[in-house]
């Protein structure tokens, strides 16, 4: 256990510079691309007014000083002030905190859907390798993987909202019912990956000697699969949950926009179209931290289940 703890500490220490570099890149993105004042100033502002704004928001200071201030403020929870039309003068940090639970909710349900489709389907497919059922599942995964999430969302909307009228189209107006479609859209794409992984992992395990040995002892097939094979086969699938988070973060931006789901993704898309750079910066930063934490989680989980990793 001690080696696990030291491994985790080492990984966390390594994540810190990565987060620092991410903040630097996010800062550079806005710093290097034009004059932020141009988009903040009222139209037809004269140069003197522009200069005044520049001094007010600290954009006249040298690069390293601006970055230092940005970091310092960020560590105190101050991510700047939004300059967008509808969110003018609101704290970026407050906006993010307000929208974050919506995105987390969406990702959690999407992840649940993805695993409850992918794991059973993968096992089913592996046990009937090369049958028509297996081939159909493989075709499903190919198509689901190739389908861009926003088009899948549109198709689901056509079916369940326009044709059948079962579900509300957008936002949170419909309570729980309105999360079903966006979560399904996110989940189905990832389910394709989960299915493939589960299938190949199961195929690998059931060819091993200990399974053959169990069969020769006359154990019922059901017991062999679910009590003995599944335990080993599911490990690689579960350990990538942290990497799935990266996929979900990217997907959420698009899916939230399709369904007008009021989370971080939707906030970011609106911020981009309003040229609200402080808010864009905040959104990118929080999504980046999500991805880094997801990867960290994956590393730790992997080391937990496979001791060889932490000793290496």
């Amino acid at each position, binding site marked *: 256990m001690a080696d696990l703890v030291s491994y985790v500490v080492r990984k966390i220490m390594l994540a810190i510079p*990565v987060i620092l*570099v*991410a903040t630097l890149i*996010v800062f550079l*993105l*806005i710093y*290097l*691309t*034009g004059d932020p004042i141009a988009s903040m100033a009222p139209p037809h502002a004269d140069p003197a007014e522009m200069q005044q704004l520049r001094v007010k928001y600290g954009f006249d200071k040298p690069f390293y000083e601006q970055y230092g201030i940005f970091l310092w403020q960020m560590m105190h929870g101050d991510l700047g002030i939004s300059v967008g039309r509808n969110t003018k003068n609101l704290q970026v940090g407050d906006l993010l905190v307000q929208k974050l639970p919506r995105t987390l909710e969406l990702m959690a349900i999407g992840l649940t859907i993805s695993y409850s489709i992918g794991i059973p389907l993968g096992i089913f497919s592996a046990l009937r390798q090369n049958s028509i059922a297996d081939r159909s599942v493989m075709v499903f995964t*190919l*198509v689901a*993987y*190739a*389908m*861009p*999430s*926003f*088009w899948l969302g*549109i*198709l689901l*909307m*056509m079916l369940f*909202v*326009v044709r059948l009228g079962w579900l509300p189209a957008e936002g949170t107006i419909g309570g729980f019912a309105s999360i079903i479609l966006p979560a399904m859209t996110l989940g189905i794409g990832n389910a394709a*990956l989960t299915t*493939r*992984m589960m299938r*190949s992992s199961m195929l690998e395990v059931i060819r091993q000697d200990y399974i053959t040995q169990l069969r020769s002892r006359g154990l019922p097939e059901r017991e062999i699969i679910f009590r003995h094979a599944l335990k080993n086969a599911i490990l690689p699938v579960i350990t*990538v949950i942290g990497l799935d988070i*990266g*996929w979900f*973060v*990217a997907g959420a*931006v*698009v899916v939230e*926009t*399709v369904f007008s789901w009021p989370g971080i993704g939707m906030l*970011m*898309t609106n911020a*981009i*179209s309003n040229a609200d750079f402080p808010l*864009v910066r905040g959104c*990118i930063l929080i*999504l*980046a931290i999500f*991805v*880094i934490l997801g*990867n960290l989680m994956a590393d730790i989980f992997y080391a937990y289940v496979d001791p060889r990793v932490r000793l290496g």
Partner: protein
Amino acid sequence: MSPRKSLNDRLATWKISGGFKQTAADILERGGRNKMVLIGFAVIAVVVALALLAPVLPIGSPTEINADPALAERPPAWNHWFGTDERGRDIFSRVLWGARVSLSVGTLAVFFSMMIGVVLGLTAGYFGGKVDYFISGVIDLFWTFPAFLLALAFAAALGPSLSNVILAISISYWAGFARLIRGQALTVRERQFVEASRALGAKNRRIMFTHVLPNCLAPLIVWASIGVADAITIESSLSFLGVGTQPPTPSWGYMLQRGISYLEEAPWIATFPGVAMLFTILGFNLLGDGLRDVLDPRMKGLRR
């Protein structure tokens, strides 16, 4: 030609697994017998042919707006195979012209990110040591983040335009190529023919590009095919969000975004561009997956 140089040239063609000619022969011979490769290739060929023929086919203008409201939102019919959109433009024509945008963005972005990836990966893997340590750090950083998220950040900062989309995807997607080449270079540089070449006085750059790189061709081609599919997905997603290709240039992502407002009265607007996109992406994915199985079965774990 000095004897030393000719010997070095002969070494360049004497390869264990790769080389340009060998890889091309492998693709033609074994790829021709693989169903995935054949189907993927056929789909891509159809899409490319239609995209190339778009200007000469009798399909009407993709951008000309029809003022007559009676011609807007017409369902598919003989004169408009895919119907017309909210401004009376022929959707079939817009889908074909959109294919030109998607294919050019996809191939150009992959080409540029391959350039970045090859140079950085080759340098890191071949020289090793501190150079490798530093470059690998950068590669890992870009590899950690989903390319779409990076491209979105770059595109938002650069401002929307076709060339900025290509730039944004290129600087977001290269890490996969770099990882691939670095790993390959690490093993190839230990091979005897590299040592022999160095003994004959070949310069580092020459060894890297004539001995190490040709041995990385097979995985590079596989990754490029899958990369085009990914780049097309990213481009259409960016256009869907409004930071990609700008109107009036027809783009699948933007067409779908407009279509959402007409799901009830004109569902075909949001249907056909999506079908075209799915086919194209599927084609490149199939080709890539098939080539991977054919060229190097060990690469199976490369992509989940």
